[in-house]
């Protein structure tokens, strides 16, 4: 089996240029083509060693797909390939404006949760997704001009919105 695959970065693995803009349909097609070749089920009748090797490669392909298909993970990964490590936990300085907006959003969410307002939560979810789309578009533009410092800041903001989106999805899922 082709162990060289494990040494490639995710963009190479999927035959893509180092570009933030991605054609999701093409990415999915490539995923299917790669898994048809390397998924352990193709080797079910073979030795454990071969199956384990397929397991490692197939997991890597899935990991690559997940990273490339999600705007936040893709941005962090691409920055890393350009030598920029984003620390989401430490050293984050947000503007007061951004922080106030975050607090307000959290209040809205817990209010809607407490009153069991499904529609309000869905509206909040929609707003969050819109916000994410706007930031993602900005990140795309900044990658073209290689402004990695600015991208790092936007990535941290995007991480905030994604976390809230997840929170709302969990609440909606359990209602």
């Amino acid at each position, binding site marked *: 089996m082709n162990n060289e695959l494990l040494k490639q970065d995710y963009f190479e693995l999927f035959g893509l240029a180092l570009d933030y803009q991605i054609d999701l349909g093409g990415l999915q097609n490539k995923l299917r083509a790669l898994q048809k070749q390397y*998924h352990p*089920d193709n080797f*079910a*009748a073979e030795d454990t060693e071969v199956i384990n090797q397929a*397991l490692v490669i197939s997991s890597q392909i899935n990991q690559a797909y997940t990273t490339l298909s999600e705007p936040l993970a893709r941005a962090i990964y691409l920055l890393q390939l350009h030598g920029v490590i984003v620390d989401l936990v430490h050293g984050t300085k947000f503007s007061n404006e951004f922080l106030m907006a975050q607090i307000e959003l959290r209040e809205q969410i817990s209010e809607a949760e407490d009153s069991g307002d499904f529609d309000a939560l869905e509206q909040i979810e929609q707003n969050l997704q819109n916000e994410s789309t706007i930031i993602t578009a900005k990140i795309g533009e900044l990658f073209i001009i290689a402004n990695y410092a600015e991208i790092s800041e936007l990535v941290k903001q995007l991480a905030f919105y994604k976390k809230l989106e997840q929170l709302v999805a969990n609440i909606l899922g359990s209602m």
Partner: protein
Amino acid sequence: MALLQIAEPDMSGAPHQHNVAIGIDLGTTNSLVATVKSGEATVLCDSNGARLIPSMVNYGDDRLSVGHEALRLRISDPANTLVSIKRFMGRGFADLDPDVVYPYKFVAKSDANIQINTRAGIKNPIAVSADILTYLRKLAVESLGEEPSGVVITVPAYFDDAQRQATKYAGELAGLKVLRLLNEPTAAAIAYGLDNKQDGTFLVYDLGGGTLDVSILRLNQGVFEVLSVSGDTQLGGDDFDHRLYCYILEKANLSQLTDEDTAQLLSRAKLLKEQLAEKEKVAFSAVLSNKRIVNLTISRTEYETIVKYLVQKTIQPLKKALRDAKLDKDQLDEIIMVGGSTRMLAIRQAVTEFFGRAPLTSINPDEVVAIGAGIQADILVGNKKDDWLLLDVTPLSLGVETMGGLVEKIIPRNSTIPVVRAQDFTTYKDGQTAMSVHVVQGERELVKDCRSLAKFTLRGIPPMVAGQARIRISYQIDADGLLSVQAKEMTSGVVAQIEVKPSYGLNDEQIGAMLQASISHASEDIQQRQYQEALVDARAILDSVEKALIADADLLDEAELTQINHACMKLRIAIEQKPLELDSAGKKIRQLVEELNHATDSFAAKRMDKAINQALTGKEIADIDN
């Protein structure tokens, strides 16, 4: 076997290579085996022609009964007849629903995994499932004439790691090569996908005896992708039976029943439920052990009222599955109904109402999962290449315990598998050399609300200032959805590494006892194989003698002919008899094969002469010399 060689030269060729694989639907209530024969998936029958085998085992004094035989013993011997054992797979004593009354003698132990005291000793759910699987394996061998080279066993999509490990282990204990654990709804979609062969998005609603599974799948360019799974592991047809049973008790004013009466009324309630799918009103009567007669009439409307909350409970997971797949109801191409419980009209109506359209029901809902598993098994042993590939997802999030009893999620639910994820952790005390790792599965934030899968201690971390060590924990989920965990200290170059397979709630002693049991099964397996081989040889020689007799009986005198016919008859009787004891039956057949061989020795010589004479006729001496 001189006779074989000259009579049938074309029979000496190697048997053609076709690997027989089977799919097993190991259900809560019933189990089925399916295989692909000449390109078509079929459900195999037992010797009585039954396709649905009750997933029940009766442990008698010196006899193990499985399937229909166990079903018959259920009423007279409920304490030793284990039913719906799937509900206990990978579960602890603490998981038992306190509201459900079981007729079993549970072994209440502090380590809390479920064990049941039977007349044949203490049994755990894995051993019981292995007994069911062994029965199904034998059924397949009898029907196919050979050992299957591999098996696909289906599990509810919502099964967690402990339940999956338990199922796979049961398969191995039964002497099966488990190629794959397949999610039941996925199997159903495969069965339907093969029919339609068209791309699309499907929702599978699978209400079985014990569980509800909802999956959304997309078939696209030969790849089946599972987009989301949802469900309820503690909700199924049994709950409807139980509700009806309680209603009967209430209506007839019954209390303090004996175990036998409980078993009787429960199985009557099940029957009543099935009848109500056909009729508007059903009369019910039963005689209890104290001779009291219960007479009742129950209408469908009455029934639908009492189970309404259960029906509604099955709708919730549909919404969750749609949300997780990020789809709207109208983006689905088809709704597929699976599981015997979907015969209930109330269920069909509720699903139709929810989606605003009627679901697909063309394949028998009891058989569709087994058929899908059989098809997938056939692909996995390599009989069919390039057909399609299955990309499944993990149903539950996997995480690790962090400070304060919180869960840090490492693999979120609905991640495509196989998958490997790593997360780095650090020490919180100066000079800390060990770290305990607690692996949990579930969606909740607190460890105590999730299922604990494994706990282990990583030792040998070099002493460092707090926060300096970097411990990488990686989770690997394979294509079966089974987890293994690895922890490594990264910074110092000193590698402390440990690999853990979750132990699905069994201790070493129990695992040892089960291995012991599987070894004794193994000797039985060898006998089974030898018996099967003797059968194959016997059929082959009978066949060739018959053909030789048709061609050349005139070469024999009457005494010789009688002797051969007699030997044939004895062998035929021996192979048609059901063996009481495999070892001696196999030896007996071997001996009779030898006798027949011996009886045909002179016949073979005469045919050889004839063949040579025919070959020589009309040929020059010179040709013969060559």
